């Protein structure tokens, strides 16, 4: 890790708070994600991890606090603007285009990357660059054989791979993955970890992950979110040695 103190964080959260009605789900979250690092957020069910992602990616606006992407405030911006600013996310619950082919699922994001969002005057089949890049992503997530099947017909783990692939297509520098390996078997998880490692090479990754072995093998740093606050941020080894974390969260698993 070569993050100097002067270098600006890729993503910075300061005092981020979110209430749903009377319930305060996030209570002043402070978090710095360094450029190029792979950073995990762990925490018990209902801790607010997905809510955190929803705030960063623009699904909701924070009730209070500041979110900065490359030094620029993005709190409360619409999702599409945040995506265009270079941050792309996946979803905990698979969120794909079920009635489109796998290829088309991926091509939508590639088109957005090339700024052809409203292309109306040229057939898509002739856009060599776009189609080539789509094929490339397709190969990276290992779905070539499924290119022309409906996304809704894929197996669960194939859909999860597609979910990751779609997140990559817009060319964002900062990738948020919400529980990419949830519900996968051991082998599938191992494959997914390899996949995530290669596709986030040279990018900044923030991921929610329950599986500590995944966190250990993939991530540079870990933040622990409990009841809406960050309890600690450290290296995986540091976190597993952290008393407070053990008590609050890892305790049950470590026992």
């Amino acid at each position, binding site marked *: 890790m070569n993050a100097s103190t002067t270098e600006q964080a890729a993503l910075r959260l300061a005092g981020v708070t979110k209430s749903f009605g009377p319930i305060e789900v996030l209570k002043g979250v402070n978090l710095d994600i360094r450029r190029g690092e792979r950073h995990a957020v762990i925490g018990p069910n209902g801790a607010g991890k997905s809510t955190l992602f929803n705030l960063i990616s623009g699904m909701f606006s924070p009730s209070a606090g500041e979110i900065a992407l490359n030094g620029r405030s993005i709190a409360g911006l619409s*999702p599409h603007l945040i995506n265009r600013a270079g941050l*792309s996310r996946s979803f905990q619950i698979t969120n794909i285009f079920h*009635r*489109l082919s796998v290829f088309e699922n991926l091509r939508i994001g590639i088109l957005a990357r090339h700024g052809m*969002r409203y292309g109306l005057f040229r*057939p898509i089949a002739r856009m060599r660059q776009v189609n080539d890049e789509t094929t490339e992503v397709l190969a990276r997530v290992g779905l070539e054989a499924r290119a022309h099947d409906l996304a809704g017909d894929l197996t669960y783990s194939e859909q999860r791979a597609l979910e990751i692939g779609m997140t990559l297509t817009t060319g964002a520098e900062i990738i948020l993955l919400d529980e990419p390996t949830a519900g996968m078997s051991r082998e599938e998880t191992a494959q997914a970890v390899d996949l995530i490692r290669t596709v986030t090479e040279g990018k900044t990754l923030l991921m929610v992950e329950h599986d500590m072995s995944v966190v250990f093998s993939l991530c540079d740093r870990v933040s622990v979110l409990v009841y809406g606050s960050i309890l600690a941020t450290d290296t995986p080894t540091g976190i597993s040695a952290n008393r407070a974390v053990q008590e609050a969260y890892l305790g049950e698993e470590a026992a």
Partner: protein
Amino acid sequence: MTNMRNLILGAVFLVLLIAVPPLLDLAWQNALVNILIASLFALAFNLLIGQAGLLSFGHAAYFGIGAFAALHLMIAVENGLPFPTPLLPLAGAAAGLTVGLIAGYFATMRSGVYFALVTLAIAELFHSLAPRLEGMFGGEAGIASMRMPWASFTFGSMLSVYYLVLAWVVICGLGLWAYTRTPFGRLTLALRDNEQRVRFLGYNAHASKVIVFAISAMVTGIAGSLLAISNETANYSLFASAVSSQVVLQTFVGGATVFLGPVLGAAAFALFSFLVSDLTRSWVLYQGLIFVLVMLYAPSGIGGVVEHHIRNRKNLDWSRLAGPYLLALAGGLLIAAGVVFLTESASILFGEEYAMARQGANGGLPAYELFGLIWKPLSFVTWTVPAALLAGGGVVLMRARREIGAIWDSKGHGARPAAKSASMGGAA
């Protein structure tokens, strides 16, 4: 291969559309004009429901706007504005696009039922305002104009109007088809599938939906202007909710998931109304019945059923299917005959004329005439006929369905003729 064949099929069809009408009489030419206009209207409407997944209940608004815009331009041409008559629909396009952008901005803020209700409200707004706006919509009477000659064309005959309409419908139809092949066309399908994810991929979903809506309204406006050119008049009744619901029925009966489905539906309905609207006052009821039956037994519409057969044409034993299909047709016709008999009898027996006849008969129930025969309302025979038709048709149809089902299943296609509907989602 299939592309080539489709191209040839399309070309043959087009040649027929060009070559046959001169051989037809005026009434048929006029009917064809209406069929073409209804087809374009339905295609434009289906851009929203079939591709973007947005159900508009107020497309009469843009149809009417297009018609009035074209008429105003025609009036200007009458008063000396040099504008080529064949390009009059551009007025409908511009008006449809403009109003579509504004209405679409508000309507597409919501999806589903709320979207449908907003579109309905917008159309109702036009419907209630139009009779009061003399200048723009000509009050209750509407406005009228004449087609002016242009170059060497006089546009005096129905046939010349037909060709003008045909040209516009074909060009717009091809344009809408091309649309499905563009990036924005593919985005439209993605919006239907999962609007939220579209946003997180960097698209402004609202703006995209406004554009889809405006394009649909623009082509609808062209369809409306073609009607104005053909009729040379229009009034506020074009904004009626019946016009809006008509296109919904046609599109769903034809099949919203197949590109040409709406054309089938529009053509079938427009043709039927031409053929039978003089014979019966219950045409609207029959339309409703057809709609309900299609939704119940073939939810993907006529187009969906046709497409499903085309897709499975190589796996099907057509020689074995022919018999049961004919049987099903026979059963359907028997039932239809029974229903028509009952409907027409009811409409006679509860009609004003019959009430007068009863007065003449001192409150008795005089016989009535239907299908060239005399029926006595209290006679056993009168009601045995429809009952036998319905029962017989039902038995025949059930048997046919069983046989058809068995043949389809034996081909290893669990899906029955109407079940599948994901066609537009496939790869381009």
